[in-house]
């Protein structure tokens, strides 16, 4: 069974909200935007997880005094691909949710160029990030992600 760390769910959501804020202003097709953000995050997450799994297999090969690449034909490698695929799909699904929510709420309430609802969502999920760091300060994470949201939407407006 693949175990999925909670911080990756929160990160997937935050990442997709920020990307949508930047691209949302410039792209007219909302569905296209959501699909692009989801696909990019899915592939990125899969590749990141797969590279980490491969690195772990390389460590095991060294520990077992095996030739490089010996474990590529084993069930360990097949399991690594499966785990990376599942994590990529979960990351993609969370990104789809984040991109969709941002896309459909970014024009509802605006103060200057700032889309208020997505920025509030960023703040809420930003505070969740503090849980994944020992001694993480929720207020600092909230401020960080609110600021990031404001800056990203500004970049999206200017570019």
């Amino acid at each position, binding site marked *: 069974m693949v175990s999925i760390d909670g911080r990756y769910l929160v990160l997937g959501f935050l990442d997709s909200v920020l990307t949508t804020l930047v691209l949302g202003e410039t792209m007219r097709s909302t569905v296209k935007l959501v699909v692009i953000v989801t696909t990019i995050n899915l592939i990125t997450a899969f590749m990141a997880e797969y590279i980490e799994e491969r690195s772990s297999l390389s*460590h095991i090969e060294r*520990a*077992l005094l095996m030739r490089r690449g010996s474990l590529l034909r*084993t*069930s*360990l490698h097949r399991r690594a691909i499966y785990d990376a695929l599942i994590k990529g799909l979960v990351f993609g699904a969370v990104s789809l949710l984040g991109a969709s929510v941002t896309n459909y709420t970014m024009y509802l309430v605006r103060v200057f160029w700032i889309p208020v609802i997505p920025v509030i969502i960023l703040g809420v999920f930003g505070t969740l990030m503090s849980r994944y760091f020992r001694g993480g300060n929720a207020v600092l994470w909230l401020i960080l992600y609110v600021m990031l949201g404001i800056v990203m939407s500004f970049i999206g407006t200017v570019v």
Partner: protein
Amino acid sequence: MLDVDIPSSVSTVELADRLGRVSGVKAVNVTVTDTDVEVLGLVIVIEGDNINYDDVKRVIEDLGGAIRSIDQVIVGEYILELNPQLLKER
């Protein structure tokens, strides 16, 4: 009797279960003799009739393991026990 190293992420229960399904195998004993961060040292004792060694090797290697040595093989119509005294005298 095999001396085997496997990655510590591999379940010894799964290894024993898969070895138990190899043709000819009647009983399997997997004992952990050494533990490291990434590697488990095992002694695997397999008993049965006409055991397919290639399949045993394939199962261990498929799980990322490496057979370091074959420490005892007994073939014949009856179990020929080794007198431990003989080993001590050598």
